[in-house]
């Protein structure tokens, strides 16, 4: 069975049907965030987190990098963000930005 690798720069340079496959790869990556941020980036009503759905892509990506680089204080996100490459952060940010609020 063939598998598609999404680590590192490969995400941005997928060999075929890049658009659709990119969105699926981004969707899969972002799905892991849903345990705290909610399905499609929509947390429960009155949740203490800002909904990621529909936030500007560049804003989400910048916050992730700020967490990762220790520039924005956090209880957990500084530890999670370190697990992701720049292309992965951009892919997840784009996916959340594309979700309806």
């Amino acid at each position, binding site marked *: 069975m063939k*598998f598609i690798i999404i680590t590192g720069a490969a995400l941005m340079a997928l060999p075929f049907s890049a658009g659709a496959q990119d969105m699926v790869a981004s969707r899969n990556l972002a799905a892991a965030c849903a*345990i705290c941020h*909610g399905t499609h980036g929509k947390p429960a009503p009155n949740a203490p987190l800002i909904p990621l759905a529909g936030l500007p892509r560049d804003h989400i990506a910048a916050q992730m990098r700020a967490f990762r680089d220790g520039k924005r204080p956090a209880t957990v996100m500084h530890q999670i963000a370190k*697990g992701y490459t720049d292309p992965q952060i951009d892919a997840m940010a784009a996916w959340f930005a594309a979700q309806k609020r």
Partner: protein
Amino acid sequence: MKRRDFLKLASAVSATAGSLTGLAGCATSAPSKARVVVIGGGFGGATAAKYIRMWDPSIDVVLVEREAAFVSCPISNLVLGGFTGMEDISRGYDGLRRHGVTVVQDEAIAVDAAKKSVRLARGGDIAYERLIVSPGIDFMLGEIQGYEGAMQSGAVLHAWKAGQQTVALRQKLQQMRDGGVYLLSIPLAPYRCPPGPYERVSMVAAYLKQAKPRSKVLVLDANPDVTSKGPLFKRAWNELYPGIIEYRGSAKVVAVEAGAVRTEFDSVRADVLNVVPPHRAGDIAAKGGLITTNNRWCDVDWRTMESKAVKGVHVLGDATLSAPVMPKSGSMANNHAKIAAAAIVAQLNGRSPILPKIINTCYSFVSQKEAIRVSSVHEWEPEKETLVPVKGAGGVSAARSEAEGTFAWNWARTIWADSLA
């Protein structure tokens, strides 16, 4: 018949005449793109059912679950402390039905992988194109002499599957005399929810400190030391519950007696016996030939969650032979489900699956309001052919805090919704 009409009919029949009539119709008619059957409606199975429907509504999904409602193990220790109620940690399956999942309240008793069908306890077979088994754990009662009888008489409880036993244990704690001893026995790792026992110790100590301050919590841990978030738990115990908790490592319980347990060294008396036996993958995993390792766990291909023993069957959650440093947790089962859902949707649509990357986050309360946390990010390692934690990522809380407590409740409510709503 058009597929859309078929779906309407199938859901109408199962809603009115009960599941089996509806399913018998499903099993003989040509389904839509394919049918995926999911056994078990916990964090793994429920999430898989929802996400397959969400990611490809042309796939039929049938979820087989014994219970009428989901009761969460995470947060159930707060019920023992008296800080929340069973209704707060329970959720129905209507959310999945709204995603078009056919929910069947029944027990899967056999899997025929050659015929690709699942047998139900009340009779009838369901055919599948892909099967997901998310059976949770069952207990190896024979490992502890006298356990089964003591459990049946109510003399010992595990309360390691949230539900009736959670309620019973809370009642025993309420009935215990001031000055009594609550005993928790922890099995050797691996077991469900590594920090769970230590959270339970904290919650019971919090209750006793306030309601019965002369009482004690006695921990007999088969492991040499606290297996998760050790320094954070021990600091909380020393600072919040001085003189209440006695912790003994390398203390494996081998027998349950009247009002006491026996370790390899001595007999220990207590008023409330909470003995958690060692676990293995849930029974249906054994019946389906899915157990591969030590007669306990199911090895899987972590790229798809497909069983290494039986083709076409995916195993999720606590039943799996854990990948390195991967806990048996609700967060992980939910993420396993998304790996399986993505792989199955890709395969049924003739696409290649994408290598997975997932996140674990486990919160533990140490007092009514304060929590601690451990997190990790896991990705595919081609050389080792498994998921491994990403180096430099993850970690534990800097300190216990009410902020972590707020995020713990958010995690719980959000993952319940992500899995079931």
